């Protein structure tokens, strides 16, 4: 069955209605979800801070705007598909990823250890899950991919066109983390 999709989108506190049209052209309401007041950036900040504090047991704060994102050496990416599609990515230096893994496992983990990559992927997965669970009506209508990890600093990530991108820069114990949500429209 072929289908196409219409969306009504407003940025803040908006009600989004997704309509699936079947092959005979008749609109069939499928799902509706509501973006909470504050929008995606606030939601991302809350979800990321909550999860980092819960899973690492540390205080999470804002990173000064002057902090450069050039020192990233590891990136974890989790895809979102369904009624919301896009990518959530978490970038940080390898040392920050190792601290994150060490905190999660309660033992010292080296930056080059496979657990470090795995921990970064796992935490991005949980942040993405928490983010969508905070959007009423969306949790059940959006699936997550298994995480992908990129190691090394010599690369750039580009969002596809027609996307909305929000980022938050956080720190824990002096270690920086950049979390970005790219949503496809």
């Amino acid at each position: 069955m072929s289908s196409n999709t219409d969306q009504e989108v407003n940025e803040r506190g908006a009600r989004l209605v997704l309509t699936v049209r079947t092959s005979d052209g008749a609109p069939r309401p499928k799902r509706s979800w509501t973006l909470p007041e504050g929008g995606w950036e606030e939601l991302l900040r809350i979800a990321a801070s909550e999860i980092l504090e819960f899973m690492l047991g540390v205080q999470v704060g804002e990173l000064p705007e002057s902090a450069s994102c050039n020192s990233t050496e590891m990136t974890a990416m989790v895809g979102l598909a369904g009624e919301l599609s896009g990518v959530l990515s978490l970038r940080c230096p390898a040392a920050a990823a190792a601290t994150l893994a060490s905190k999660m496992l309660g033992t010292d983990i080296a930056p080059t250890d496979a657990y470090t990559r795995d921990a970064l992927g796992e935490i991005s997965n949980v942040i993405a899950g928490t983010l969508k669970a905070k959007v009423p009506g969306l949790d059940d209508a959006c699936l997550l991919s298994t995480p992908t990890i990129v190691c090394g600093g010599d690369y750039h990530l580009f969002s596809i066109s027609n996307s909305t991108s929000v980022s938050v820069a956080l720190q824990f114990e002096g270690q920086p983390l950049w979390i970005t949500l790219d949503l496809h429209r």
Partner: protein
Amino acid sequence: MCVLIVDDSSVMRKIVQRSLRLAGLDIETVLEADNGEQALTIVQQNTVDLIFSDINMPKMDGLEFVRQLQSLEAAKGIPIVMITTEGSQSRVVEALSLGARGYIRKPFTPDQVKERIAPLLEA
């Protein structure tokens, strides 16, 4: 008690294992699998008392694992607790209808793990 933890994330397997120990459960053996396919083999070759399984995994996901587990004689009566990031109601409901006995949403505390599995172990 022998516990099987099925998750494609080695970190999450260690976290579940650590949570079970911190919760004070008497665990003798912990077996690990990174997908449902591997877990099915382990169940057939070992005596497992409790299974924790992720839902979202490559190769064979948690739902298919639970589905196939039900047809194994060796798996009869083993309680299965699903671990999910998404809390996606339909997938959790599907897992429960296939035979899972409970679920835990990530992130979780050792106390939450203990609370979820205590009734299963009593039974």
